[in-house]
Every structure is written in C-alpha cells, then in structure tokens.
C-alpha cells in the first residue's frame, strides 16, 4: 500500500505508542465497525429509557448518534487508507480528525451507557449490544491515539500533557484545492446547507434531554473533526467564491426550517432564535464594527416592541389605534431610531468605559420607566408591570399570522408564520450589515474603533460616524422588536433586562456577539443560536444556567478568544505566532462572510 504512505505521515511519535501506525489504523477501522454493529443490537431490556433501545436490528434514539459517529469514523479511516472516492474527506489531516471522530463515538456511547445505568439504576440494565458498542468505540479510541500526529514536529516535545493532547488533535491547513466547475461548487454549498439544516432541525427536535446532550457531544466532536480534516476551510473557500449562492442557500435553508417542524413548540424555539440572532447581529454593528460597548442594547428591542404594541390595536393599549403592520414596523423602528439618537447624542462624545456605563443605565431606566408608567407612579401608558397583553396577530394581505395554514401539504402554525416574517427582518439586517460594513462608512467605524485620534486626523467626524452606528443599531433592534412583540403577544418590562434567564437580554446579546465572533456576520448568528438553544433544551440546568454560561465564556475566551467564527483580523490579532504574518492565498479565500468586517 504505497498509497497509504504517501497520504499520511506515519513517522511522528504518537501520544500512545502502543501499535505501529498501519496496525493502529486497522484497529480503528475494526473498532468502529464493532461499535457500528453494536448499535443494531438491543442496549437495554426495558423501554423505560427514552428512545426505546430494546429493538434488535433497528437502531433508535441515542443509538443513532453512535451509529453516525461510528459510520463517520469508518469513512474517515477508509479515506486515510486512500480509498478512491473518499479521499476528498481529508484534504488537511487524516489522523487528527480520526481521533476526534473516535472520541465523538466513544463519548456518545459512553454517555448513553452512563445515562441508561443511572436512569434505570445500575449497569445490570445494559444488554450485550451496549457492551459491544462500548468496547468497540473504546478500542477505536485507543487505537486512534496510537496513530502519529498530523502536524510536523514531535508530539512529545510539548511541555505538558494538555498541550500534547491539543497537538495530537490539530492538523495543518489543507492543500490547495483543485479548481472544480461552478455547478459542482454550487451543488456542494447547497448540500452543505441541507446537511446543516438537517442537523439543526434534528437538534431542535430532540425530544428528551439525554438525546439532546448526546446530540451536542456528537455534534461538537464531529464539527471539530471536519474542521481539522480541512473540509470547513474548503467549504468557506467555496462560499467565498459563490457568495450570492451561499447567501441564497442559507436563506432557502432557513425558509425550509418551519416546514420540517411538526409541533409549534419547536417552531417557536426557531422563531425566538431568529429574533435573538437578528438583534445580536444589530448589536454587532455597534460593538463589533464601531467598537462602542453598548450594555443596554435590549432596551431598543423593548422600545420597538412597546411602540408596535401601542399601535397594534390591543385593547389594553393606551393609544387605542390600530395601524397596519407595515406602519407598525415603521413606528417601532422609528421610535428606536429616535431613542438611539437621543441616547447617543450626549453620550457618544464620551470614550470607552463611560459609554458602557451610560448605556447600562439607559437599559435599566427604560425598564423602570415602563414599570412606572402605570397610572400610579406616572401617566398610564404601558400598564406598568402587567404590560400590554393580548396584542392582536398581524394580518398581511389577508394572511393571518395567528392561525395555522396548510401550504403544500405542510402545516404552518403561528410560530412558523412569525418565523418566516422574522426571516425577512433578518434578511434586512444581514443586508444592512454586509453593505454598511463594506463601504466608506464601515471603514470609518473600524478606524474609529482602532484609533479614534488617528481617525479624526484622517478627516473622520468621530461623533457623527459613531452616532450613525449607534442609531443604526438601535433601529435594527427596534425592527426586530416589532415582530417580537407580536409573537409573544404580550410585552412586559421584565422581558428587557440587563441579565436574566431568558436570552434576549443585554448580557446574552453581548455574549452572543463575542462568542460568535465580533465584527463577523455569521458569528453572532451562530453564537445566538447556541446560546438560545442550549438553555432551552436543557431545562434541568435552569437553576445553574448563569453559572454554566459564565464557565463556558471563560473556557471559550481561553481557548478561542476570537470567537467561533473568526474575523481574519481577530485571528491575526490573537494568535501572534509568526506564521500568519503573510496572508497566503488560503487565508484571503477563507474570509468569505467574515470579510464583512472590512
């Protein structure tokens, strides 16, 4: 097999030097095959454990996740052998992704076995199938770590165990891709988004906590594996080539989402994620581009929601007018714009920390004022803490968003309708972000963020430019607020706090931007999705949510300070070690969506 030696580097010292490299690879293949077979057997005797893992010959529930992990491990192992037709799977490293996938399989299986044991009371509840999969995945894991590292250099030279483990899980950047015809590139992008949509919908649809945790474990390790395999770099190079196609594909995938949902509960989660993500993207204009730390951003969402609620024709609205939706949306966005200018005009002359304090204050003032405009402590405008309930649903061209509609055989409930409406708002915000970032004004924002004195010396009117960013951010939040008010059909002051357990609040918005990647377009969208989805699906952690959130932030900032989706600039900023000094062809290709930060 000369093919194998040319494809992989078998010379480095592995972390666990048990087996020679070819033998280790055979063992990984065999181990994951065993794990795969195990998933077709019964794992437990009773259907008390959710997902019914008692059936022979038909994997279900968590078994499916193990199956996916084992199958992917097999595929990547075959790719490492150089099997024709599978080599495209590993353009960068072969061993590191294999290790990560073996880890995914093992962790998912291990978690499942643990969950069965603890749910049903003891490991006696495990059937042979569970042992088969467990042992198979363990063998695969150990053997995978017996494979040498992908990155040149000796694994054992690193200082401590942690660094050595990280080293074995890292792969070099992929070889330059062969040019493929446009139609193939487009097909790949479409397929990638279809898979993405499927995985996302699967995650939202997970019906019990165990399945969701298993899903998270599998997804995280698999994602890391395909990143190390270089597939992600290849994909982002493609998306950079076909940006319009990518955006359309993302949009179409997003449109498809409510049609994949049978229950309103999960469609509602989707709609809320979209609202959260859109507001986070709006905040990214203010924080990521212009560098203005806004700690009261959720108040602008509140202004939009309240303004729309007041003109919605709700019986409790003090105005008692009923505007058509397009007018309500304009009122909401307009009110936020006015508040943005009112707050920004006096405060944007301040720099840095002062602005953060003032905006923090504004956020609280908004909430307290809405509480006090109740007829007792002030004029009755907002009904105080009771809020404005029973906001009527929107009707657009006779299409009532409040009731279910059957479209092409799919039933679209109220949350689904609002999801689609929100998607339009998201599209607007995405367009605004992209276009403003890539223009004279966007460059002025970044310049102000980088060095305000130098920027003014270059002829930029700092105050004016900052005010535009601030007001634009406020307007976008107000726009989202109008939809949010109608979706929740009640607006109360308590929805718009600085920090709370329900995601659209200022702290979580900021966290979504930072987690996802400041100054990028897809970053806040991904960050917001994760920040909403994880707490929503893990109800049992509700009490510890803020604690876990804090821990997650610290871990991420330690390991990946530039966020999940790195702006090219940020990547260069945080990882100073030489090699990125010169932007190589690859790097400029991967900018893609992140180029919006320009």
């Amino acid at each position, binding site marked *: 097999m000369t093919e194998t030696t040319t494809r992989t580097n078998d010379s480095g010292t592995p972390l666990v030097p048990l087996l020679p490299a070819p033998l280790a690879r055979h063992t990984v293949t065999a181990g994951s095959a065993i794990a795969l077979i195990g998933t077709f057997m019964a794992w437990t005797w009773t259907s008390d454990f959710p997902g019914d893992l008692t059936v022979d010959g038909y994997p279900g529930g968590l078994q499916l996740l193990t199956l996916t992990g084992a199958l992917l491990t097999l595929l990547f192992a075959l790719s490492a052998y150089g099997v024709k037709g599978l080599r495209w799977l590993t353009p960068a490293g072969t061993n590191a992704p294999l290790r990560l996938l073996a880890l995914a399989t093992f962790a998912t299986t291990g978690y499942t076995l643990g969950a069965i044991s603890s749910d049903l009371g003891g490991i006696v509840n495990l059937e042979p199938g569970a042992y088969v999969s467990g042992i198979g995945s363990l063998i695969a894991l150990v053997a995978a770590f017996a494979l040498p590292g992908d990155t040149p250099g000796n694994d054992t030279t690193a200082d401590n165990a942690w660094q050595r483990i990280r080293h074995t899980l890292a792969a070099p950047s992929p070889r330059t891709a062969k040019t493929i015809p446009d139609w193939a590139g487009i097909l790949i992008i479409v397929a990638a988004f279809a898979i993405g949509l499927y995985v996302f919908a699967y995650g939202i649809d997970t019906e019990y906590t165990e399945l969701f945790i298993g899903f998270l474990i599998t997804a995280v390790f698999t994602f890391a594996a395909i990143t190390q395999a270089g597939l992600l770099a290849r994909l982002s190079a493609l998306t950079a080539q076909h940006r319009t196609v990518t955006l359309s594909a993302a949009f179409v995938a997003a449109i498809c989402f409510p049609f994949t949902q049978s229950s309103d509960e999960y469609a509602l989660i989707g709609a809320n994620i979209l609202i959260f993500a859109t507001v986070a993207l709006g905040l990214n204009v203010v924080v990521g581009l212009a560098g203005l730390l806004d700690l009261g951003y959720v108040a602008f969402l509140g202004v939009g929601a309240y303004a729309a609620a007041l003109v919605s024709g709700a019986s409790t609205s003090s105005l008692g007018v009923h505007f058509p939706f397009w007018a309500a949306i304009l009122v909401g966005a307009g009110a936020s714009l006015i508040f943005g200018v009112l707050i920004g005009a006096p405060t944007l002359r301040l720099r840095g920390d002062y602005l953060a304090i003032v905006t923090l204050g504004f956020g609280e003032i908004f909430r307290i004022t809405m509480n006090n405009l109740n007829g007792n402590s002030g004029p009755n405008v907002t009904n105080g803490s009771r809020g404005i309930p029973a906001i009527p649903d929107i009707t657009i061209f006779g299409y009532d968003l409040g009731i279910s509609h059957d479209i092409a055989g799919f039933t679209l409930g109220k949350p689904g309708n609002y999801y689609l409406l929100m998607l339009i708002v998201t599209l607007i915000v995405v367009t605004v972000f992209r276009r403003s970032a890539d223009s004279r004004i966007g*460059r002025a924002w970044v310049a102000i963020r980088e060095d305000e004195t*130098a920027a003014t*010396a270059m002829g930029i009117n700092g105050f004016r430019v900052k005010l535009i960013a601030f007001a634009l951010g406020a307007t976008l939040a107000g726009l989202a607020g109008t939809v949010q008010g109608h979706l929740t059909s009640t607006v109360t002051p308590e929805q718009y706090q600085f920090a709370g357990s329900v995601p659209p609040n200022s702290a979580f918005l900021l966290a979504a931007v930072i987690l996802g990647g400041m100054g990028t377009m897809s970053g806040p969208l991904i960050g917001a999705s994760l920040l909403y989805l994880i707490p929503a699906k893990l109800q049992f952690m509700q009490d510890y949510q803020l604690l876990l959130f804090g821990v997650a932030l610290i871990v991420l900032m330690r390991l990946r300070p530039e966020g999940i989706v790195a702006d090219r600039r940020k990547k260069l*900023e945080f990882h100073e070690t030489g090699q990125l000094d010169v932007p190589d062809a690859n790097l400029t290709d991967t900018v893609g969506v992140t180029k919006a930060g320009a």
Partner: protein
Amino acid sequence: MTSMTTTTNTVLQASGVTMRFGGLTAVRNVDLTVNSGEIVGLIGPNGAGKTTFFNCLTGLYVPTEGKVTYKDTVLPPKPHLVTQAGVARTFQNIRLFPNMTVLENVLVGRHTRTKEGLWSALLRLPGFNKAENASRERAMELLEFTGLAAKADHLSRNLPYGEQRKLEIARALASEPGLLLLDEPTAGMNPQETRAAEELIFAIRDQGIAVLVIEHDMRFIMNLCDRVSVLVQGEKLVEGTPDIVQADERVIAAYLGTPFEGAPGEEEIAEVEAAESAQSTTSTEGDTP
C-alpha cells in the same frame, strides 16, 4: 503655476500662536509661514513645544491665542475639518489602524474626499461602486508611490517599522492635502531608511505639496529643508536657511548649552591636565612597592 513667483504663495500662516496648559506656556507667540513648494523644518531640543505647536495647527488643540490660516482661510479647531481643508499629518508615535489592511488604511485616508454616506452604501445607489473603485485605484497609486503596493493585503501591524512610517505618509497623502505635516518621520530609522524617506519627501514636494517637518536628525533636516525654524522653550529662536541656522550661536547654545562665566581657559585646562597626569603617576608608584 509656471513661474517661480507663484511658488511664494503662502500655504500656511500661523501668527502669534500661544498655547497654555494652566500655568504652563508650552508655545509662546510663534509665527510660522509655509509657502507652496517649500519644505520647512521645525527643530528644537526635547520639550521645546514642537509637537504641541503641530497639534495647534491640526486642531487637536485649540490655541489659547493666535490664529492659523491655510490658503487665506482660518482653520477651524476640529481635526477632521482641518484635514478636510487640506492639511494632513502623521504622528510622532505611529498611529496606524493596526488591524486594518494596508489598503484599508489608505482608503480611510480617502474619507474626506469621498461622499458616499450610509444610504448610498445600504441601497448601493448608482455611483457607489464608481466612487469605491476610484478610491481603490487612487489608494493603490499611493501605495505604488510609497512602494507598498505589494503588501496591500497585509495587516498594517505586521509591517516593519520603516514601512509603517511610509504607510502613514501614504494615508495622509490620500486626503489630497496641500500641506503635509510630518512629526519626526525618521525617528528610529537606520541611515538607508532615512535616505529613502528623504527621497520620498522630495518626491512629495515635487507633486506640489508643501511639507512642514519636525525632526531631530540634523543631517536629514539640513539636507531636506529650504528653511528651518528653531523652537526653544516654546518660543521661536531663529528662522532661515539651513546654513544660517547652523551657524547661529544661539541655536548651538540651545542644543549644547553656553559656557558659564568662569569657564576655564585653555591654559588652565592644560595646567589641570598636567597636574592630573603627575598625580596618576605618583599614585601608581605608591601602589607598587
């Protein structure tokens, strides 16, 4: 523009500029004129108020007294309006936008000479792309001019020191100034880089841009400048051609200090030296028994 007389047109006129910070007068009653096509040097010992004077010219400080005119209009005390009017500057400590690319840095310099606002960017109004492309083209020209074109996509923070200085000049030139203020453009440069900077400044002057330069490197300033002005303790001491300034005793005094009244004459120095050498020989004899 053809005859030599037009070159005497005044570009910048500062008259009676005084800057006080509380009780401290950093700049006192300084007059300075820069004519078109001229390179004027501003020198002085550390703390003489050169950079403060620069900041007064560019609107970073509002002078306590005096006024600054550029081509017969009074400059407003706002940095961005000064740049708009046609006075661009560089900074003593390089102040690039470190996380923007080289090209983007220069494009930011184009800010005052383009008008596309937010609406134009959002709606991609006709003319947006045209203006953007024109800006890019002009920026690339400037990068060619300063020899940085090959590094247009690099982050400016990753450029070597000398090139960062050049980029700062390119960025300033992007605002199409009539007067360029350079604050210590060769600080920290080696002799080759200094010579290159000198040629660059001459080339800028040849484009019809007047230059006012602060510098400590005397050889550089004497080669470069048509006129040199000396600032000492906030006041202008001398102004004139390099030869006049170099020969001026007050300037030498300002840099090296004056001999005090009871300074020893040559005879006394010889006497002391003789005594010291005698002493040292005796002491060495004493040490070695």
